[in-house]
């Protein structure tokens, strides 16, 4: 039932979104009408026939009341089995230039053709000719010795054994080359093509059967495979010549048509998701089964009766059911697969009605049956559609698997990233708690003592000023160490912000202004790899620059500028410039003091490019930050 549960699945395009119900119904009906017209047009295309000049149509039939004239083609209704003798004639030329043949395009059930009293053609010799549902033609070369210049006798012994009435189409006698083409065409149409269709059916029956075998829930596939296998059997199972002792096999062959049609009905119900009760299944399959059993157990006459009274209504009912089901589905679902199925049912129904009209004699002079071929073609098409759908479903499964793999990979990546984040968070939390502990320790111990020293030194007046300054410097350094341990998420600006405060407070007693000048809107780039020891080194470097200015430069202001710029590689690089407006190193011969060495060393340890310019109007230190801060201390 699962095939029915998803009939609009892979391969089917839903039209319902685009078409309102009434408009769709109109469109569907006109489509079906078009199919009927096309179908009738195709059936009425005249079959390949030899030139009319070779036709032999005037005959006399020997009957109990003497000879009666008939004109071919004609039907011979009446009891069966019986033998009908026809006498005809044709004119041969004075001198034969090539072989002559006689061709009978259509006959029911079998014909023996005699030329001048000698049998030249017996259609019963070819087994496939004995099937009334095949539109068989036959041809035979007339031995040259039999032909007389002028009028020749042509006799036909028509064997009729039912279930259909006897029929004989126009005969053709003439040069073989004139007849052979038409004969070959008919063989291609009515013999080769059905075999080709049947071969396809065999292949599809196997494919669908294997699908069903591996996926038992797809019952629809199994039923369709059975119908196709039966159809193929019907084609290749050639019944022996009538009358025969192998009546059962023949009965099975005839009985397969109702069985096939009921299987197709069951398939449609399964495929369209209708509820299928066991009782219905039994009732649907019963007529076909009864005919087969009758064929195996009873005689040919029984089969004929069963087929006419049971088989034909069963076929009509099944096909009617299929037509109703598929059209209802097409109108309610409005998807491509349902419309295709409905169209196939329409074509089959048209062919069946035409064949029934032929059988009951409403269309005289015709004995070409089309339903079987149309059925085989339709089944092949439906099988191909299903295989297509199956392959599409496989593709969908593949792409689903692909998506799943991608999703799993993404989830893995996310998990890994979140794990890394969690690790980082834990690390930050550990650092923060360590910092809190250290802060508390310093606060309660060293910090308080240093503050007391500052207070005591200040109370000693000028005498204690130096001590006070030293203690303040120690306090500043404590704050720097604590600050550097804070998690600043790689944003050096945050460390600089606190440094600015401390430095401004420190410079105020010296009457030196601290100017803060961003060079680019974003400030410094963020360095995720920034570690506390980088921050300490950089801030101490800046502290030392400020100390130098305070001690030696006699400056009134210090300007700290910072910003990012793009290097040659296009990466964002940070730059910090600290400049004073003092007198530079002009007073000193060599500006190679210990402070300067320290600064250079600190810069090198962090991978920072350090440069110092001393001019008479001030000292300017430029720090070019690296693209990435080194993980390990360069000096270590």
């Amino acid at each position, binding site marked *: 039932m699962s095939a029915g549960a998803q009939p609009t699945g892979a391969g089917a395009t839903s039209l319902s979104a685009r078409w309102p119900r009434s408009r769709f119904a109109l469109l569907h009906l006109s489509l079906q009408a078009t199919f009927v017209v096309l179908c009738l047009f195709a059936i009425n295309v005249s079959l390949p026939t030899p030139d009319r000049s070779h036709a032999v149509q005037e005959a006399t039939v020997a009957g109990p009341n003497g000879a009666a004239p008939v004109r071919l083609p004609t039907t011979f209704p009446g009891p069966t089995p019986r033998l009908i003798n026809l006498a005809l004639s044709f004119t041969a030329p004075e001198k034969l230039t090539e072989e002559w043949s006689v061709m009978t395009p259509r006959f029911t059930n079998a014909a023996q053709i005699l030329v001048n009293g000698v049998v030249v053609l017996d259609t019963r010799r070819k087994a496939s000719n004995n099937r009334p549902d095949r539109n068989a033609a036959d041809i035979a070369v007339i031995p040259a010795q039999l032909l007389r210049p002028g009028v020749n006798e042509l006799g036909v012994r028509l064997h009729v054994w039912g279930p259909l009435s006897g029929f004989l189409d126009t005969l053709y006698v003439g040069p073989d080359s004139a007849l052979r083409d038409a004969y070959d065409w008919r063989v291609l149409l009515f013999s080769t093509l059905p075999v080709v269709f049947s071969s396809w059916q065999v292949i599809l029956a196997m494919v669908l059967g294997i699908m069903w075998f591996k996926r038992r829930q797809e019952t629809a596939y199994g039923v369709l495979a059975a119908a196709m296998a039966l159809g193929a059997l019907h084609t290749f199972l050639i019944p022996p010549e009538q009358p025969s002792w192998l009546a059962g096999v023949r009965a099975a062959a005839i009985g397969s048509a109702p069985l096939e049609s009921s299987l197709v009905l069951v398939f449609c119900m399964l495929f369209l998701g209708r509820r299928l009760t066991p009782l219905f299944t039994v009732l649907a399959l019963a007529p076909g089964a009864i005919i087969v059993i009758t064929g195996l157990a009873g005689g040919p006459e029984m089969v004929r009766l069963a087929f006419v009274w049971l088989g034909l209504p069963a076929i009509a009912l099944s096909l009617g059911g299929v037509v109703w089901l598929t059209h209802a589905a097409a109108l309610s679902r409005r998807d491509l697969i349902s419309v295709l199925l409905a169209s196939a049912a329409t074509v089959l129904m048209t062919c069946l009605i035409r064949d029934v009209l032929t059988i009951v004699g409403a269309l005289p002079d015709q004995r070409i049956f089309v339903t079987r071929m149309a059925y085989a073609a339709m089944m092949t098409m439906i099988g191909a559609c299903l295989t297509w759908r199956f392959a599409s479903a496989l593709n969908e499964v593949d792409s689903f698997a692909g998506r799943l793999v991608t999703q799993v990979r993404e989830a893995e990546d996310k998990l890994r990233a979140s794990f890394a984040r969690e690790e980082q968070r834990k690390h930050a939390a550990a650092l923060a708690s360590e910092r809190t502990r250290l802060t508390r320790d310093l606060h309660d111990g060293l910090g308080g003592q240093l503050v*007391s020293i500052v*207070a005591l030194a200040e109370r000693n007046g000028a005498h204690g000023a130096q001590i006070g300054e030293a203690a303040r410097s120690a306090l500043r350094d404590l704050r720097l160490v604590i600050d550097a341990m*804070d998690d600043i998420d790689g944003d050096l600006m*945050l460390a600089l912000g606190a440094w600015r405060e401390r430095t401004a407070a420190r410079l105020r007693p010296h009457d030196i202004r601290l100017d803060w000048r961003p060079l680019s809107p974003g400030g410094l780039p963020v360095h995720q790899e920034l570690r506390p020891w980088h921050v300490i080194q950089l801030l101490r470097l800046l502290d030392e620059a400020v100390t130098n200015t305070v001690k030696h430069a006699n400056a009134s202001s210090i300007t700290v500028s910072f910003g990012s710029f793009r290097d040659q590689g296009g990466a964002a690089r940070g730059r910090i410039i600290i400049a004073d407006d003092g007198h530079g190193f002009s007073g000193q011969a060599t500006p190679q003091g210990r402070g300067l060495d320290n600064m250079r060393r600190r810069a090198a340890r962090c991978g920072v490019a350090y440069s110092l310019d001393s001019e008479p109007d001030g000292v300017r230190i430029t720090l070019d930050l690296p693209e990435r801060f080194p993980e390990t201390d360069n000096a270590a």
Partner: protein
Amino acid sequence: MTAAAADMDSSVGPSGAIMVLLVEDDAPTRERLRDVLAGEPGFTVREAGTLAEARAVLGQTAPDVLLTDLQLPDGHGVDLIRETRARLPGTEIMVISILGDEESVIAAISVGATGYLLKDAFPTDIAATVRDLVAGHSPISASIARFIVRRAQREPDAAVRPQLNTARLTPREIDILWGIAKGFSYADIAAHLGLSRQTVPGHIKSIYRKLEVNTRGEAVFEAVQQGLIKL
């Protein structure tokens, strides 16, 4: 002392003497601070070395400014701040911090202090900071601003102390805090955010007030507001 003080126009001061209650157990530090403030015109100073002494003084008089250390021999300054805030709403409260570290300062702010003073601040900065506070201008340091912003932008973690009520901060106030954390002056921040320079210090005090969780009732109200408690 801070960027705020640097930008501040210190001529803005109250008329009449500012009465300061100084609570500090370390004698040299207390004396130093007392000397600095008493030496400035317009200040009268009362001092206390313990929590009990401070409570005794507060029982008699309502100072304009309470300047208190946190570690006291007979208790914690946070309790004193909470009591004073509840009983004397007109008193400005400032905590004296050794390191200006966020743990002590934020703890004080969360119970009602609106400023802090470093114990080793230079004498001129001490008086200026107290005057600014009385004028409604609260000082804030870059590291404290950073701490508040960080707390406001991270998911609340109940285990982290001190507790801080950042839910009511506006985006503008957070922008101001970011500017301070990155070392920009009030003038820079005002220009960048399209504010008047004079209004920035007022914003700081408002931020401090919002961070305060000073009564049980308010704490419950905030908890309900933030969905921590379901009624």
